[in-house]
């Protein structure tokens, strides 16, 4: 099932990915870097570093042509590790600064280390994508906000 909104990725040039082509299985998750020590008595000490926010989704129907070229170009730009701006839903706006009534976006880096489309049909490929949210001033507080934004809800 395709997602509600249209994804947009801003790197060299903004690219919008239409719901008709995905994404599917859009998941944003929190991954805590936490070290737990269990004392002899059973008490647990938790030493917490940070929570990483990771986004995963599948683009099931990338067609050879402009669509495929857009993804190819995006991966070529993102694979070296640079950040890009990601809009989980182009229909969602946020009044607060720095969005100030514009689309809700934040910075991500590509977690994948390769561009590996899989053939699904003649001239059609699927692609599994994984992003890591950059913990800067734009970053959402948790993955739930990204899920809400994806489904068109105000990220709270």
């Amino acid at each position, binding site marked *: 099932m395709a997602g509600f909104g249209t994804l947009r990725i801003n790197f060299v040039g903004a690219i919008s990915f239409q719901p008709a082509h995905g994404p599917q299985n859009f998941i944003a998750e929190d991954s805590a870097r936490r*070290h737990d*020590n*269990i*004392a*002899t*008595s059973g*008490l*647990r*000490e*938790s*030493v*917490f*570093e*940070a929570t990483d926010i990771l986004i995963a989704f599948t683009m099931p129907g990338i067609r050879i042509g402009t669509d495929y070229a857009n993804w190819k170009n995006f991966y070529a730009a993102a694979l070296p590790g640079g950040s890009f701006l990601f809009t989980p839903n182009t229909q969602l706006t946020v009044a607060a600064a720095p969005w100030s009534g514009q689309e809700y976006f934040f910075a991500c880096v590509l977690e994948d280390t390769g561009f590996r489309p899989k053939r699904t049909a003649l001239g059609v490929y699927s692609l599994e994508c994984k992003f890591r949210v950059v*913990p800067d001033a734009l970053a959402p507080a948790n993955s739930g906000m990204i899920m809400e934004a994806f489904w068109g809800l105000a990220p709270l």
Partner: protein
Amino acid sequence: MISTTSGFNAKNAALARTPIYVFAIGGQATVYSTHNLAKMGVTGTLPAYETWLRVPTGATQSIDVQGGTSSIGEMECEVVDYGGAVRSLVGSVTLEGSSATLLVGYPGTAYTDFATLNVYTLYKVIPSQSYSSYLFRSKDIQIDVRQTIWNNPLNGYPLAADNPWIIQGTPCEIVQAICLLGLAMDASKVDSAGLVQLDSAAENLYGCARPYLFQEYQPFQAKDFLENQIYKSAGMYPVVNNLGQYSVRACRAPAAGASAVFAFTQNNIIGLPTFDRANILNDLLWTYDADDQQQNYASTALYLDATSIGEFGISNERQVRSNGLRTELGAQWFIQDISGRMFARFAGTTGLRGGAPLLTVNAFLLTLPVWVGDYVTVTHPLMPNLFTGGLGITNRLFEIISRSPDYANGKMQYQLLDTGLTGASAAAQFNTAVIDTALIY
């Protein structure tokens, strides 16, 4: 125990918390932190910072109490080269030789509550294997103490037969002379207060003994000199405190008695401590009263702990040769006293039933203020009591002889030495004239 604020202690005691590490390089305005200080609610005047520091592994310090030596602590801090900024810094400024300070604090505290963990000296700055970060490697102040003293500090001319540097005094006075005069270390790098305290009349340990007189007429390495000529013969060992200061600890607990600064219990020990035993020490061969050329020695003395030898056999003979110990300055009394103290700790006859027990303890990160040389207690219901045959030990007094932090994985490891101090009276009550008894510490 390192000095911490109440603000730090309150946060450090929580079982779930987020330590924030800050790495500062001397002379650089920008520090590197593991977290965004402002975002984590750190208050007060914050330095300029970048959140590019990876959680460091931490620096290990371990000591050999019998040998009077200490390992040189080494610390590595990895800073992500975000946008090439660190590469630019490394390429434009000579950072080697600068101080490297590691601090730790918690969200919601003032920046002034951050505790200093180490103050070391940078000796190597290199890119990581992938070039994506830079590794800042530093060593403790002993890297300076390892230097060779070439000149007589009193006149600046090279040490020679006709220009010897004559050093006389208590062990602590000589340590200060070597550090401050011979090595010209900054006074802030020497724990003068701690050294003076050891010499105080209240301690009655070294202040009444000035048995050393050295005539150094050729270059010598300071660290070797201190360890072999002073510490080994005075039952001392060096410690570098968290502020990077060079200090020493004595073979005996403070005169008022060993005061535990921390309690290890089943609530902060991970798993079960592992046991080992220190080597038995029951014979000490002393060589002293060196001639002017420091090649021939007029006096030799052998001290034995007969009870220990009877029970365990003779230990590996430990030879102590000090060029500065002199009979006319009271060396004979001094070495007898030190022999007694060392036997009391390591001959295995003070109810220890063998070599002094050594514990390796994995512990919670919240124990990180505990430092090498501290006295701590251990209470654990599952540990065998080697002295009663029962199960469990309560408030047993140990000395920290190794501290190995693993900040990256959020835990600590210590090695604890038990020399039978539990329940011992204050040292002032001991009769130091009585040798070969269990009463001398």
